[in-house]
């Protein structure tokens, strides 16, 4: 089909729909005289009229308004239910969050969720060296005589005299309790041997004072 014939088809359609001008009608009539394809146009146009008259003869009167309005109301109910539900959930969550912050639960929960320690003791715990009772006893046994010795030293007495507040009594260091230093060489003693042999060996190898 040529491009020019497509134009005549357009003209035929315009004439059938009643939209063509007189010039267009004459142009198409001249073409239709010599065109086998367009020669049946009058019958085709009548066919189109049949479609128009078929519309007039229809008696079917459907009614969908009730169904559509019911559907719309259902949608509105569904939306309102959803809105009320969403508002309820939002209020409940808001109250729960507020209560959690007021009671401090949220802070602990936050710490627990982050894996952070809760208290100062937990913070210090990894750095704390746990001492056994024997170690404590050793520290006390060695530190106390030294502390008393320092308190009785002339430097401390001089410091006390120079830095004493006016009217304050002169502090006198308490006397050191009777304390026998541990016999370190006793550790060298082995059961079954002469107790003095280990001592003698230690004295022999001790550096001169």
């Amino acid at each position, binding site marked *: 089909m040529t491009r020019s014939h497509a134009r005549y088809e357009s003209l035929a359609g315009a004439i059938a729909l009643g939209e063509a001008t007189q010039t267009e009608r004459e142009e198409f009539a001249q073409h239709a005289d010599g065109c086998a394809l367009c020669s049946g146009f009058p019958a085709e146009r009548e066919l189109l009229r049949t479609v128009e008259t078929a519309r007039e003869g229809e008696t079917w009167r459907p009614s969908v308004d009730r169904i*559509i309005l019911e*559907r719309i109301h259902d949608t509105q109910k569904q939306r309102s239910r959803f809105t009320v539900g969403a508002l309820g959930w939002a209020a409940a969550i808001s109250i729960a969050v507020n209560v959690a912050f007021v009671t401090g639960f949220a802070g602990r929960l936050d710490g627990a969720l982050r894996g952070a320690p809760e208290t100062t003791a937990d913070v210090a715990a990894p750095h704390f060296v746990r001492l056994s009772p024997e170690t404590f006893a050793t520290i006390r046994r060695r530190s106390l005589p030294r502390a008393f010795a320092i308190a009785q030293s002339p430097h401390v007495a001089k410091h006390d005299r120079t830095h004493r507040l006016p009217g304050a009594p002169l502090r006198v260091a308490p006397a050191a309790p009777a304390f026998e230093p541990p016999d370190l060489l006793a550790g060298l003693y082995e059961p079954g041997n002469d107790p003095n042999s280990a001592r003698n060996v230690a004295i022999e190898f001790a550096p001169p004072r």
Partner: protein
Amino acid sequence: MQNVYVLGLDRALDAEARIERLVCEHQTKLARYVRRFVNDADLALDVTQDVFFAAYKMLRADPSRPLSAGWLYKTATNHSITYLRKKRRRGETLPLEDVGCAFRTDEHSATSLDLQNALAGLGEEQLACVLLTTYAGYSSAEAALILGTTADAVRQRVCRAMRAMRKTLGEPA
């Protein structure tokens, strides 16, 4: 033209009132148009409902939007074309004796059934052009706007549809 007036100018009406008005004014014409298109009365009712519900959703989203009857026909045409294409893809064909089954007994006549048979033989685009221009009463320019094409294309399709229908009606049943 009566079919192209705009229903969105009355801002006082809400979406529900406007859709009620649309339904009352256009339901019969639109359902008959879709029935001619798909040749199935029940499906025509379903499509008509869907079209009005889509209009309601659109008006609810934007209450100030003007809505013309052309939009209803455009949506109905698209729905019908989709249905016909699905039907064709599935390979469903309507027996000749069932061509008029979608129509009421008082609408049955040899001419009407022959006409429906001829319309059923058209392609979707030609059928849309013929029904929009001759059945719904739109001009070729308005039908072109509805279908998203040019007025010349609509006229050509009408001409080719007329030729195809004459060929169908000329064949012995």
